[in-house]
C-alpha cells in the first residue's frame, strides 16, 4: 500500500517517540471536533495534559476498552472522525476488537497504539510487545490493512493527516519512551461522560 511506503515494516525499525509530544501533535491537528477516546493510564493522562476538549473521553478502569468505546462512538456518529488512543498492554487484552473494527470496516475510526513495551504504571514490567509481538502486524492479520508504524514524528503526523482525510479504519503504531505523564486525569466519571456527550451533541 502506498500509504505505508514511508513507514517501517516492523516495530524494531520505528523511532522511539515521546508520548506527550505526539499526543500534542495529534490534538493540534484536530480541527473538526473529532472525538478522542483515551485508554487507561498514562495514555489517558497525557491526553488530559495535552489540553482538555469536550470531545475527549477519559476512560478510567475498563482496561482494553478504548477501541470498543471508540467504535461505538463511530457507529453512532458516522460523520465524525473518532480516534482511540491505547497502550500496548491494553490492546493486548482486547486483540479481538481489532478484528471487530476490521469486520465493520468503520471508515471514521483511527486507532493509535502507544507502545513502550511495558506496564509502566504498575512498575515497568515487560509487555508482550517487548518480547516479539508486533501490534501493527497483528492488526494487519486481523484485517486492518491500513496499519503502519510511525517512523518518526513526521511520519506520525503524516499518518494522522491520512486518517483525518481518507477513509479508515486506520491503525497507527507508535513506539514511545517511558517518560512520566504531565498531569493526572481528574477522576470524575459522571462529569467526564456528561461533558463528552455535550461535546458530541448527544446531549443539549
Amino acid at each position, binding site marked *: 500500500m502506498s500509504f505505508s511506503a514511508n513507514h517501517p515494516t516492523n516495530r524494531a525499525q520505528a523511532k522511539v517517540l515521546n508520548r506527550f509530544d505526539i499526543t500534542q501533535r495529534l490534538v493540534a491537528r484536530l480541527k473538526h471536533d473529532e472525538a478522542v477516546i483515551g485508554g487507561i493510564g498514562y495514555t489517558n493522562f497525557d491526553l488530559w495534559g495535552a489540553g482538555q476538549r469536550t470531545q475527549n473521553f477519559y476512560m478510567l478502569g475498563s*482496561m482494553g476498552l478504548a477501541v*470498543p468505546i471508540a467504535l*461505538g462512538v463511530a457507529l453512532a456518529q458516522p460523520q465524525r472522525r473518532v480516534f482511540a488512543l491505547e497502550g500496548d498492554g491494553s490492546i493486548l487484552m*482486547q486483540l479481538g476488537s481489532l478484528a471487530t473494527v476490521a469486520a465493520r470496516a468503520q471508515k471514521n475510526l483511527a486507532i493509535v497504539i502507544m507502545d513502550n513495551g511495558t506496564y509502566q504504571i504498575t512498575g515497568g514490567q515487560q509487555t508482550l510487545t517487548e518480547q516479539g509481538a508486533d501490534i501493527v502486524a497483528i492488526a494487519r492479520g486481523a484485517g486492518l490493512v491500513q496499519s503502519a508504524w510511525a517512523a518518526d514524528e513526521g511520519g506520525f503526523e503524516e499518518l494522522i493527516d491520512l486518517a483525518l482525510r481518507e477513509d479508515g479504519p486506520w491503525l497507527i503504531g507508535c513506539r514511545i519512551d517511558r517518560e512520566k505523564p504531565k498531569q493526572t486525569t481528574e477522576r470524575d466519571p459522571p462529569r467526564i461522560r456528561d461533558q463528552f*456527550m455535550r461535546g458530541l451533541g448527544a446531549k443539549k
Partner: protein
Amino acid sequence: MDEEAPNRAWHEIVRDVLKRHKVSLVTYVPDNVLRPLIEGVHADPFFTAFAVAREEEGLGILSGAWMGGTRGILLMQTSGFATLPNVIASLAVPFQIPVLMMVSERGTLGEFNIGQSLVARTMRPVLDALAVEHHTMTRLDEVEFIVDRSITQAVATQAPCCFILSPLLTGGKVFAA
C-alpha cells in the same frame, strides 16, 4: 399491555419493544437460545447487529454508542456475563451509562455442563453487589411489561439493566442424552 398481535414468541416481543424504544444497536456473543432474537434483529434493517469477540467488547461498544446518541443492547449467555464484572463496575455504573444486557440463562433447570451450573451462581450476586437492576423473565405474558418498563427506567435513571431469560420462558438448552 400487548396492543399488537397476540401469540408472539418472546423474541418477537423483545425485538418489537427494543424497536419501540429506539434500541437499534445489538452486539452479541451467540447462544442457541438467543438465536431467533439474533436472527430477528439481523433480518430487520432498523437494527445494526453484529457479533463481537468477547462480551466486554460488546459492552464497550454500547457505551460509546450511548454517549454518541445511540441506544444498544448486549446479548450473551450466562458464562459470558461472568466476564463482565470489571467493565460494569468501572465503566457502565460509575459513568452512569444505561447499557442494556440480555442473558440467556444456563446452569439451571436441566443443565448438563457443570461449568455452566457453577458460573451461573455468580451472576445474580454480581448484579446485586453492583446494585444493577435485573429481572428474570419466566413467562411470556410478563416479557413486554418488564422490557418496556425497564428500558424506560434505565434511560431515565442513567443506569444499566440486565434481563435474564429463564429456561421457563425460552425452553433453555435441552440435554441430548
